[in-house]
């Protein structure tokens, strides 16, 4: 049984999603240049927090439907691993922080990373909470639900 990450079609879906997500991320950085926000990397902050919210929501909504099927896996890989993985970025966060520190702006750097980590975590938890509701959500008692996807297989 070939693992997903060695299947060309699934890798292709991730690539497609990643291209879309990265393009969207770039569009945001163009629309929200750092100069207009007093040196704060607001664009990256917004992208990462929104992306964390959406991924929390997506994965929870998918897992609530029960065991992963080929179709829901394609959705997870394209939208989650691909689009949201492409939309969010750790490299920009790292570089922006490094530049702030190199420029002597330690306080701004600290504020920026704190806002990102705290904001991202809170957003993710909120997304998970919202993902557990709505249409398609399995409202049966946990014991009756089909076993959900093992945690280690998600969020790739």
């Amino acid at each position, binding site marked *: 049984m070939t*693992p*997903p*990450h*060695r299947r060309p079609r*699934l*890798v*292709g879906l*991730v*690539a*497609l*999603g*990643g*291209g*879309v*997500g*990265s*393009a969207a*991320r*770039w569009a945001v*950085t163009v629309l929200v240049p750092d100069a207009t926000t007093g040196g704060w990397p607001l664009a990256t902050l917004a992208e*990462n927090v929104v*992306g*964390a919210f*959406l*991924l*929390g929501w997506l*994965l929870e909504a998918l897992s609530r439907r029960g065991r992963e099927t080929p179709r829901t896996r394609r959705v997870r*890989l394209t939208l*989650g*691993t*691909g689009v*949201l*993985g*492409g*939309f*969010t*970025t*750790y*490299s*920009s*966060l*790292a*570089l922006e*922080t*490094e*530049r702030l*520190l*190199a420029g002597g702006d330690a306080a701004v750097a600290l504020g920026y990373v704190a806002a*990102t*980590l705290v904001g*991202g*975590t809170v957003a*993710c*938890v909120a997304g*998970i909470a919202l993902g557990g509701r709505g249409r398609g959500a399995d409202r049966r008692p946990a014991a009756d639900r089909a076993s959900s996807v093992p*945690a*280690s297989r*998600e*969020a*790739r």
Partner: protein
Amino acid sequence: MTSLLLVALGGGLGAAARFVLDGEIRSRTRGGFPWGTFTVNVLGSLVIGVVAGVILAAGAAEGPAAVARLEPWRLALATGLCGGFTTFSTATVESVRLARSGRLRLALANTLGTLVVTVAACALGVAVTTAIL
């Protein structure tokens, strides 16, 4: 339009590479710590540091025109490839999952460890590149 394509292509390639590498690492590691995501984030941050270092060095040596000439490379490699290769959303979900399953220390290790090591890797990339060039 060209900028968009450069970013999209780099980002698509980066995301695919992340998916593959993360999968390979996962299949070889045990325990709760998300080594796959951690690795791609650190590696991507090192590379973006190198790209930034190249641009900084070019700017210092040849001025703003040189920096402008490198913009397509920056878009493709930094914004695109590194941006697609690394991921904040997955790292966050993994930390939240660890915390919710009671593995708080691993969650903190992932959150803080990823931050510290990626910034350090980036700084290393910048430092080494600007020193060499």
